[in-house]
């Protein structure tokens, strides 16, 4: 019986669900989404690849390529922490819509 006033009030109010994907919630600034790499500032010290807990990052020094497997990435941000450059060459973006049907699409090459 005690729930009744709240139930009646709620039936006539706006629901708390956001109609995704038409409505999107704004994410806070520090949100840890997909990793991005900045080719210009990177010095190829290999710190991010060595320190990654799941070995998701592969770097080819000779060809100057940097690849990450977002299937293995746990979005912890450690690569960002250990990167020595200013501004950081490896950082979290706010991208979180990362699903795909094919597993090859998870190995991102920059």
């Amino acid at each position, binding site marked *: *019986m*005690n729930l009744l006033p709240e139930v009646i009030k709620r039936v006539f109010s706006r629901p708390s669900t956001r109609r995704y994907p038409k409505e999107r919630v704004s994410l806070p600034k*520090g*949100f*840890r989404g997909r990793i991005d790499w900045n080719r210009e500032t990177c010095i190829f010290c290999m710190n991010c690849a060595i*320190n990654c807990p799941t070995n998701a990052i592969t770097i080819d020094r000779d060809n100057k390529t940097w690849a990450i497997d977002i299937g293995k990435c*746990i979005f*912890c941000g*450690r690569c960002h922490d250990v990167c020595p450059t200013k501004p950081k060459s490896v950082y979290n973006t706010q991208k979180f819509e990362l699903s795909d049907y094919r597993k090859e699409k998870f190995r991102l090459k920059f």
Partner: protein
Amino acid sequence: MHEYVLPFGPQHPALLEPLHIKLKVDGETIVGSDIKLGYNHKGIEKSFENRPWSKGMYLSERVCGICGHFHTSCFSQGIENLLGLEVPERAEYVRVLIGELERIHSHLLALGVVAYEMGLDTLFHYIFRDRELVMDLQELLTGNRVHFVMNVIGGVRQDIKTEHSKRVEENLERIEERCRHYIRLFRSDSLVKSRTKHVGYLSKSKAKELNPVGPNVRASGIDYDVRETGYFAYKYLNFRTLTTEGGDVLERCIIRFRECMESVKLVKECLLKLPKGELKSSVPPVIRIREGLETVSRVEAPRGELIYYLKSAGEKPYRVKIRTPTYQTFHILGEILRGYEIPDVPVIVASIDPCISCADRMTVVDTNTNRERIVTKEEIREGKC
């Protein structure tokens, strides 16, 4: 009426995680139960031994989704003990603040599940809506809703910015108001009371004998809370253990709501008293600990006392043993299920707040020689144990 065996699990719509209880039922009354765990065994304790200490932090966070921060706090506290490292004061306050926020969200999840098991899905949705207030705060302060990665060895990784404190206070005020409302509801709604009062009763003497931990034992009248020992910043805060008599499902729910309100007070106090200072002590990039050193580290997770035993083998641990609170609490189900009816089973199981992900560890005890031996994956595969 004849006796028959009703399987509760491993797959069941009422269970969030797989566990197996074989209920011996006579009509609708439970006369016995046989509890089996192990469906969620992930081999985490073995995985620790292959990683250096700093990478082990990420592994320990993933032992459990809803108490991950407590696992990393306990693990890093153990490593800091082994290194003889002193954590700066600001880092201790931040650890406590994030920990108390996680306690609130974990308790609200457990309470929502109890409401759902009673058949009241309206209350389930209301409690989960209020839990979103805490999840938003966690996302704002740490960058993710679960698995915060706040702890590093030697301190914390991120700071609590002052511009967020207004939002934190607003949400916490609302949560405190809602918790009060829910306590009134649980105590006064006749149907909720009929499903929770005098159900799943654990007496104080039985609790002393069986030794559960966490709010389950505090609801039976025994005050046991690791935060009394004053680790991290609890020694500077006004913390008191909450106990209550009663020992039934209703009391376990009420004490969780009251602990949420107490956590709100602690977070506000932390925000007020947050001292200026460093966020972490400096540690070498590769951590080496003298071989053979061992330590035990304890924290109060939302479900109870969490213990980590660490033994070092240089750059990696030699052995990490995790004693999670659910592992310790789970066996009281054999006692508190007896004599009640089938409809009470999901409510009682949900009221002890089991986290099976945390609880599945496997140790082989050799009853002939009473020695404990850890089995490796190869031994299991070859059938040697």
